[in-house]
């Protein structure tokens, strides 16, 4: 950033907070969504930090995720393959959501609708794969929130808590996106403007963002 740009952004910062007026120059709903997302960041970070602490301090060794989440398609098990597919699905859905936001601002109702429906469909398939992963772990491997056959019993509670809470967010997101998509199609936002699509998009990108951290800390490290 050039010096002029920095001093410009500093002066807008001072302007926005110093006068007796609106501080955030964004639609009300967008500011509220951001505040919700910041608070959600705190919740997920608390979960991941409790995972960090529990993993450092268990007396038993931590189970090897790479082997537990391996999946075999007829041949030798491929490590973490399902998780990798889930990651790619979520990134794909983030891309379709970004396009939906863009077409929303262009007032292209048909494209916005279909990109949002595609995003919701990717989200739903993500939740489906998570359900498959959970049932495999519970039924075949015998992982429980209080015990598992591999090592540290906390593995189960951390896994179910973090992925469960994330899956709940994805499920809620799918419902939210479909609701907004059908309202877009009906023309609810023709007069109000299409900020709502961007607000729903913020929520969806946040769900993808949280998965980036879960993928790194819980599955890879």
């Amino acid at each position, binding site marked *: 950033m050039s010096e002029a740009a920095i001093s410009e952004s500093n002066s807008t910062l001072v302007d926005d907070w110093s006068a007796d007026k609106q501080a*955030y120059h964004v639609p009300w709903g967008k500011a509220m969504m951001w505040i919700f997302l910041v608070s959600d960041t705190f919740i997920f970070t608390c979960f991941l930090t409790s995972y960090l*602490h529990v993993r450092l301090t268990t007396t038993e060794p931590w189970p090897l995720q790479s082997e537990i989440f391996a999946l075999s398609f007829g041949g030798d098990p491929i490590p973490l393959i399902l998780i990798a597919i889930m990651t790619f699905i979520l990134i794909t859905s*983030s891309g379709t959501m970004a396009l939906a936001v863009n077409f929303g601002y262009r007032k292209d109702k048909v494209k916005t609708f279909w990109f949002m429906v595609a995003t919701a469909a990717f989200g739903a398939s993500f939740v489906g794969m998570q359900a498959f992963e959970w049932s495999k772990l519970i039924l075949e491997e015998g992982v429980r929130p209080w015990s598992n056959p591999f090592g540290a019993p906390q593995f189960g509670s951390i896994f179910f808590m973090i992925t469960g809470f994330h899956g709940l967010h994805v499920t809620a997101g799918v419902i939210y996106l479909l609701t907004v998509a059908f309202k877009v199609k009906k023309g609810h936002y023709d007069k109000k403007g299409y900020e709502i699509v961007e607000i729903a998009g913020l929520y969806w990108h946040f769900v993808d963002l949280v998965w980036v951290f879960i993928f790194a800390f819980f599955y890879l490290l």
Partner: protein
Amino acid sequence: MSAEAGQQHPLGIYYKIWILLFVLSSFSYAVDFFEVQGGMRWALVLLFMALKAGFIVAIFMHVVWERMALVLTILGPPLVLLLLIGLMSVEGFYISGTRVQYMGQDPNQVALTPSDLHGGGHGEEEEHAEEEAH
């Protein structure tokens, strides 16, 4: 860029970031697939994670185009969390360190894997023999 115009940007940048996220995710997965271990694993996984998170927040969530007042509201408070993470890791390393030093815990113990438990074909026979012995 006034707030009334909304966050409208050329489509090209979204496609580029989209592809970049795919590439970075593939790199993360490759770290596990090629079994990179130790400090290198941590460095690579954290690097790819930070880049992915940064691009999602900056471009897909439009933070790079927002006004400074909103940017600081979004990115400022979570910085406190770094303190929490730092304190908890210091505490955690201290606890596990004292266990190893004073209580004889083996720092290099390895957990069981599904193949240890289910084994190949002969695993079942062993279990069966054990049952008969009872």
